[in-house]
């Protein structure tokens, strides 16, 4: 069954070819973001910047108000993720470890919300946000997306494997239900919580449709909303746009580099949408 040398070479050639194709777009905008405007609009373009300049990065922050959008996105991604971890694990715990009236119904109801994508309810959601006074508030980007059926389901499945005796022992020691959740259950869930945190951070950081519906005030823009706004302008300032894109990719890139072994292992990904 050992492959012949020709077969091996074929596999490598194909892989390297595709990998180069897949790597190129990001490398290209990275290189372009360091070119000055003359080089940026020069045709045909040069591969490498002849003179490395940071002017677009400086412009993005000084003229483009990019710092504000970056902070907004960071607030949303971090707080929404923390909220997600808290409330999803609470619900997952209840649905895995208690027998209570309506429990099965709630589990099915939670999962069935997966059937209703945001794309289908964006118009009424806009009205609901307005009615609650959440329109143009970062809270609209933090609270609603924190309840995820995927998160609840994964945590429930995970907690089903935890023996009841462990919780019973704490109860006998006099711990109340909240203490059991906080001191026993939460630490047990650490691996799955870490996986969820990565995805939640990425979902919120990259999200576009929620902010598009919920935010119109430029002071509340997230990075994605700001980018989409700049690209819609009549005269697109590509220099700033490319610099902003490069900065916007950095947090997700860090998350990716730190956790990429877990991400590409498939175990985590297959459960996530």
């Amino acid at each position: 069954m050992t492959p012949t040398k020709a077969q091996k070479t074929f596999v490598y050639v194909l892989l390297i070819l595709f990998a180069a194709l897949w790597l190129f777009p990001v490398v290209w905008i990275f290189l372009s973001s360091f070119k000055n405007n003359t080089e940026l609009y020069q045709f045909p373009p040069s591969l490498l910047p002849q003179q490395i300049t940071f002017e677009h990065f400086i412009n993005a922050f000084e003229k483009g108000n990019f710092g504000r959008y970056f902070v907004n996105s960071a607030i949303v991604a971090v707080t929404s993720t923390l909220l997600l971890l808290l409330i999803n694990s609470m619900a997952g715990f209840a649905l895995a470890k208690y027998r209570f009236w309506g429990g099965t119904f709630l589990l099915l109801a939670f999962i069935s919300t997966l059937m209703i994508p945001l794309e289908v309810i964006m118009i009424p959601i806009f009205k609901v946000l307005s009615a609650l006074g959440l329109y143009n508030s970062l809270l609209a980007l933090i609270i609603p997306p924190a309840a995820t059926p995927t998160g609840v389901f994964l945590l429930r499945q995970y907690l089903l494997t935890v023996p009841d005796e462990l919780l019973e022992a704490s109860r006998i020691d006099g711990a109340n239900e909240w203490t059991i959740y906080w001191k026993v259950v939460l630490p047990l869930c650490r691996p799955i919580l870490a996986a969820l945190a990565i995805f939640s951070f990425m979902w919120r950081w990259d999200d576009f449709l929620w902010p598009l519906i919920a935010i119109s005030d430029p002071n509340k823009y997230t990075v994605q909303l700001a980018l989409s706004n700049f690209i819609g302008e009549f005269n697109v300032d590509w220099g700033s746009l490319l610099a902003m894109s490069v900065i916007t990719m950095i947090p997700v890139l860090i998350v990716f580099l730190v956790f990429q072994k877990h991400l590409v292992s498939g175990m985590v990904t297959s459960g996530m949408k």
Partner: protein
Amino acid sequence: MSTESIAAHPQPVNKRKRKLQLAPYLFVLPNLLIFTVFIVIPTILGAVYSFHEYDGLNPMTFIGIENYAEIFTDVKFWQTLGKTATYAIIVVPLIYICALGIAILLVQQIVLKGFFRAIFYWPTMISFIIVGLTWRWIFGELGIINGVLEAVGKDSVSFLSDPFFAKLTVIIAAVWSRLGFFMVIFVAGLLAIPKDYYEAAHLDGASKLRAFFHITLPLLKPTTLLVVMLTTIEAFKAYPLMFALTGGGPNKATTYIVQYIYETGFAKQELGLASAMSIVLFVIITIFTVLQFKLTKGGEN
């Protein structure tokens, strides 16, 4: 003494039981509230709007199924739905073939496996907005593709202002951005196939191609169905990528169904009509989800 301890025992247990009843509800409450307010209520509202004429400002007026009747005769709606379906019919097999192909290469005995996987996976973590503007920068009038065309002596192409090339650009960007996600699912599926099968096939003198069609593909059926259904649903929900890449143009060539609904609701202020369109989209997506559920179950048997 023993009777005393038995008699004394039930009381705290009862107390515990009452507490047990309340705790799960409190634990579920935050999720339940959010789901109710931001999914259940909007779904009901959307259904209600769909039977009303509503501009979002003035009180709505009940018009029965008139919105649905309007959709039925709205040529643009069906054209847009048709365009979306065409997009799905092209992008779904393309993602399937590319993701499976790369996954097969990656399960071979090769060096730098993790490095290659990372390169293909990384684009899935980039937002559609950045994916869109990256490819817009590459395919633009002064972009690198035109630079290469110029270098080999060809005329440059206005990729983004030509309907055919704009659609092609969107498809390329979509495949580039989503391949890694499905590749990972395929790798997991491929690794689950026992190696003995291939060894037996090899001993029987079967070629690699035969082994692929008679072992790999049949055993990969559950994964295949999952990937096909997920990509199909994704294709029908596509909007953010086009927002940044083509803006839906040129001349609406890459305006797909979600953008059409968005514009009907938010630009034209026809909330009732847009809600009715959403329900049509919901029915379409539900059909695919149910199919996915049924078929994947069938695939596992």
